[in-house]
C-alpha cells in the first residue's frame, strides 16, 4: 500500500542536535497535535507505551540505526506517518543505542489491519537497496519528505 497520502510536511523532521527517545516522542506529539485533534501527550504516551512492550529498533542497515515506533490513537481521523532524520543520533534503544532514521506511524484503533499494512510498507521501504542511506542523507525536512515519497513510489 502506498503511504504517501499519509505523509505530511509537518511530520518530516531533520534534527540538528542529539536527543533521546523521550524528547523525540515529545516532539512527535507536538507535531501530530498541531495538525490533528489528538493531544500531544496522548501521542507521546502511546509511543512510549508501545515501545515498552518491545523495542521497535530494527537491525542496522549500512551502519545506520533505524526505528519504526508506532501508536494507535483513539480519535485520530486518519493515519499519519512521520519521518525523522538525526545525523547525530537519537538514544533510542533499550540500551540507549542510537538510531539515525525514525519512521513513525499513528493509526486508528478502528483500522488495525491498515496499521499493520502501513508498518509492513515502512519495513519494505527501509529494506530497499540504498533506501536508508538516501533517507538518512536528506539535508532538510522538505528533502526528507520528497525522498520518502519517492521511496514509497518506487515500490509500486
Amino acid at each position: 500500500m502506498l503511504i504517501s497520502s499519509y505523509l505530511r510536511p509537518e511530520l518530516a523532521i531533520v534534527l540538528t542536535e542529539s536527543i533521546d527517545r523521550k524528547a523525540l516522542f515529545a516532539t512527535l506529539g507536538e507535531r501530530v497535535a498541531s495538525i490533528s485533534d489528538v493531544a500531544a501527550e496522548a501521542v507521546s504516551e502511546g509511543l512510549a507505551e508501545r515501545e515498552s512492550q518491545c523495542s521497535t529498533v530494527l537491525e542496522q542497515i549500512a551502519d545506520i540505526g533505524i526505528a519504526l515506533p508506532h501508536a494507535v490513537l483513539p480519535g485520530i481521523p486518519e493515519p499519519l506517518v512521520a519521518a525523522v532524520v538525526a545525523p547525530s543520533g537519537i538514544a533510542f534503544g533499550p540500551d540507549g543505542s542510537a538510531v539515525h532514521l525514525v519512521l513513525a506511524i499513528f493509526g486508528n484503533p478502528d483500522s488495525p489491519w491498515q496499521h499493520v499494512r502501513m508498518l509492513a510498507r515502512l519495513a519494505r521501504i527501509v529494506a530497499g537497496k540504498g533506501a536508508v542511506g538516501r533517507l538518512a542523507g536528506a539535508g532538510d525536512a522538505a528533502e526528507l519528505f520528497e525522498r520518502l515519497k519517492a521511496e514509497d513510489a518506487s515500490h509500486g
Partner: protein
Amino acid sequence: MAEAPSSRCLLILIARNEESFDPLATGLLDVGITGATVVDSKGLGAIIREEMPMFAGLAALLPRETGSRILISVTTRDRIEAVRAFIEEMKPGQRPIGAVLPVESTLGLPDES
C-alpha cells in the same frame, strides 16, 4: 446453470528457510494479503537428510534450504501481480517458490468485488 468462474486465485508460496519468511510476510501484508494460512513444513530434502538413514551419506550433497513454511491464501489477480513485483525485489536467496491456481468458486469468503 453453471456458476460464473471466480476472479480469485489460490496463492501458494513456500519460504525457502525461516529467515526468508519474515520479509515475505511483510511484503504480503504490504500488498494487502492480510488473510492467509501458514503451515510449518519440511522439504523432502530435509526429511531425507534427517529422518532416512539410508540417505545419510548423501546429506552433505542435498540442499539445506528445502522449505520451511507454506503460505496459502485465496486472493485477487491484482494482488497476485503485486506479489510478483514484491518477490522480484527480494534478494534471490530469499525468494520463495510458489504457484498460482485459478479458483472455480469460494466458500466462506466475503463477496468478490
